[in-house]
């Protein structure tokens, strides 16, 4: 009994344990639900999963199921970010405990209730649990924003090495801004979402892209999904900054940009409803701020990695090759920053290109082709976010030595190949016609699936190792629990 209690305390009361539970659940959901589409479905695994689990997949409810699945995973990701931020950013211990407890119950309820309702018949109690779970996550968000309040006396007058303004810690203010913007953006989707068929009529934004005369509620839902993913990315960028102890001159430029960018992008997304004509311009302006802030973080981080690794190897005057080697010495830390750089190639630059060439490229393609580009675009972004979180977790649990290197590179290299392949796939109509595409599609899909499988196997190996470890009396979990108590 004592052993069970200790494990419960580790899994549900320590940061590492909470992140582990959420990551494991996401991995489990990805493993099972990933069988329902794409190559796994072609191999017949969908039918097997449906038979074994008793899923009920009504064709008319596909979009509704997908939205429930997105929310189940997204809320777990949000919870992970909250755990990590609450561990890194100073806040009162009882507040941290309340936030973590509330969001944990919330995302678990939303995940179990949402997936249960969507995929296993329509048990209305499960739907209620899904709604209650989301409400709890929102309530945890309010507590979280309050705890991050940068005007509190105890958090004023920060270390001068970090950005501040009139005694306010600007990094804390950036976290606070992100939290408040997330709360507003959640409402921005939740309230209009509940309007559609009393919450039971759904649509996927990519299906309505060419619809003439979208309603304000449709626009709000479309704005919601865009800004939520953006804010998840902003939260992660801030978190990576904390991980690298981002400070100094670049920090002082980056944090105001991050705050202004977050506010501007959020307003832009909200303005899609009343001022659609100018909303995108506002979003672009805000994006420049956020992307520049992230760029400064990457510059700082790369420089820090080089300096620290050269110092560790006692090299005073390094040549270019030595600097490069120092940069990539630790794939876990390098990878987290590199993924932010790579994102620009496979998401941002393609997005800008498509936006600039809209009338000459995507809009002359059939809608289904445009849809592939749109969904590819945000799937890549969401997956990049996931890989950075995995790398962060690998560092958090202290992977060392060869295991750290193997794990890091197994996440970074195959994921980069997969994202590159996905970007090629989603833009294939730029360079191949429909009839001639098969060899290219086959090659891309094979590459993409093999690369993604490698990433997922690496993640699965990590999860299995942690699961086995939980059965050990004095395993790594116990050590982590002790460390956390000490911290």
């Amino acid at each position, binding site marked *: 009994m004592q052993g069970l209690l200790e494990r419960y305390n580790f899994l549900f009361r320590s940061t590492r344990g909470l992140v582990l539970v959420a990551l494991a659940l996401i991995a489990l959901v990805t493993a099972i639900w990933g069988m329902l*589409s794409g190559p796994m479905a*072609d191999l017949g695994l969908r039918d097997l999963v449906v038979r074994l689990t008793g899923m009920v997949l*009504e*064709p*008319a409810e*596909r*979009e509704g199921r997908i939205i429930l699945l997105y929310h189940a995973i997204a809320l777990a990701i949000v919870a992970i970010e909250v755990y990590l931020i609450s561990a890194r950013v100073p806040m009162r211990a009882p507040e941290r405990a309340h936030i973590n407890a509330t969001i944990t119950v919330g995302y678990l309820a939303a995940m179990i209730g949402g997936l249960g309702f969507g995929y296993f018949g329509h048990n209305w109690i499960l739907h209620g649990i899904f709604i209650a779970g989301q409400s709890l996550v929102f309530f945890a968000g309010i507590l979280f924003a309050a705890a991050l309040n940068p005007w509190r006396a105890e958090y004023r007058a920060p270390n001068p090495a970090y950005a501040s303004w009139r005694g306010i810690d600007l990094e804390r203010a950036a976290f606070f801004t992100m939290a408040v913007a997330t709360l507003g953006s959640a409402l921005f989707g939740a309230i209009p979402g509940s309007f559609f*068929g009393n919450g039971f*009529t759904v649509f996927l934004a990519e*299906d309505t892209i*060419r619809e*003439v*005369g979208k309603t304000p509620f449709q626009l709000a839902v479309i704005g919601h999904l865009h800004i939520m993913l953006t804010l998840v990315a902003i939260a992660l960028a801030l978190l990576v900054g904390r991980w690298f102890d981002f400070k100094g001159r670049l920090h002082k430029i980056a944090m105001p940009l991050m705050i202004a960018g977050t506010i501007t992008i959020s307003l832009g997304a909200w303005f899609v409803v009343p001022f659609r004509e100018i909303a995108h311009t506002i979003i672009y302006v805000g994006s420049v701020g956020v992307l520049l802030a992230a760029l400064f973080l990457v510059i700082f981080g790369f420089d820090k990695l080089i300096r620290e690794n050269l110092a560790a190897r006692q090299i005073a005057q390094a040549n270019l090759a030595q600097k490069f080697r120092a940069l990539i010495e630790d794939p876990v830390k390098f990878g987290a920053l590199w993924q932010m750089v790579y994102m620009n190639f496979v998401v941002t630059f393609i997005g800008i290109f498509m936006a600039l060439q*809209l*009338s000459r490229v995507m*809009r*002359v*393609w*059939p*809608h*289904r082709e445009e849809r592939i580009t749109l969904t590819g675009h945000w799937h890549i972004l969401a997956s990049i976010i996931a890989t950075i979180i995995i790398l962060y977790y690998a560092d958090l649990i202290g992977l060392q030595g060869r295991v750290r290197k193997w794990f890091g590179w197994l996440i970074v290299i195959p994921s980069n190949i997969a994202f590159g392949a996905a970007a090629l796939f989603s833009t294939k109509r730029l360079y191949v*016609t*429909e*009839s*001639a*595409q*098969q*060899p290219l*599609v*086959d090659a891309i899909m094979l590459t993409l699936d093999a690369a993604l499988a490698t990433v997922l196997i690496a993640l699965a190996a990590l999860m299995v190792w942690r699961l086995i470890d939980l059965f050990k009396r004095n395993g790594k979990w116990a050590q982590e629990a002790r460390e956390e108590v000490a911290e």
Partner: protein
Amino acid sequence: MNSDRRPPTADARSQITDNRQRVAGICVALLAIALAACASAQTSALPKFDTGVDPESWATIPAGEFLFGQQSERVKVDYAFEMMVTDVTNAQYARYLNRALADAKVKIVNRQIVGAYPGDAFTGYRHEKKIEAGDKLHLVVGAPDLRIVYDGASFHAKPEYANHPAVAITWFGAKAYCEYFGWRLPSEIEWEKAARGTDGRAYPWGDAIAKNQANSYNSLDPFERGIGAQGDTTPVGFYNGKTYAGYATRDAQSAYGLYDMAGNVWQWTGEVYKGTHYRYLRGGSKQNYEYNLRVWTRNSAEPDYYAASVGFRCARGK
């Protein structure tokens, strides 16, 4: 453990060179085999099947309510109409071209078949393009995806594709075909009612789909062999319960007896909506996964778009 770091002898160098040449030779041979396989895949003979379904036949769709769209809204079509049982075939379209050319309804300009179109009303809505009056593209003679050939005097369908749906025809070309015979392209509502019947089903035949029920991506039909998952078009009415060279199909008729209302090729519908220059397509195609074959799924493209996965059928009566 000692490692031999002496330079290789002349014999050994010759052996290394031989080995390298052998490896290179094997690589070239493998590449050649792969290329030959690709080439043969592209040019492999297309199977020819007689489905027994008459592409000249029409089905009557009675007046009345039906459940429309993904949300199954009740919509009433207060008139009976007829719709082609199959997509227009290449043979049919080639015959039409010869007649329409002779009647000067269409003309060949720079290896394009064009015909007059009165233009659309323009509202200036976001991303809307002007479709002005004038000659519009119906098809490009010699386009790789076109299954109809022009010998300088007349058009005829490629024999192996004669009973396959006519593809690579623009919306203008599809509309012109129907109107030439006094028919029209179906509206989206008409199309969906014809596909779905009145019971709100997701596919023309019911609520579940099997691979041998429609020509979709990786549906493993005989026309995918040697080509890949996107395959090729299947003859109209192919999925009728018959077995073709060992490949057993399921009968995929709609409630009103129409074939290929899911998969094979997207089908142009007739409406010109205010505020957009796009034309809408229904049914999904050989390029798509099954969920795109649900009866309410919409696709859209510019009216001069043409592809190997886009065809049409006509409606008449009102």
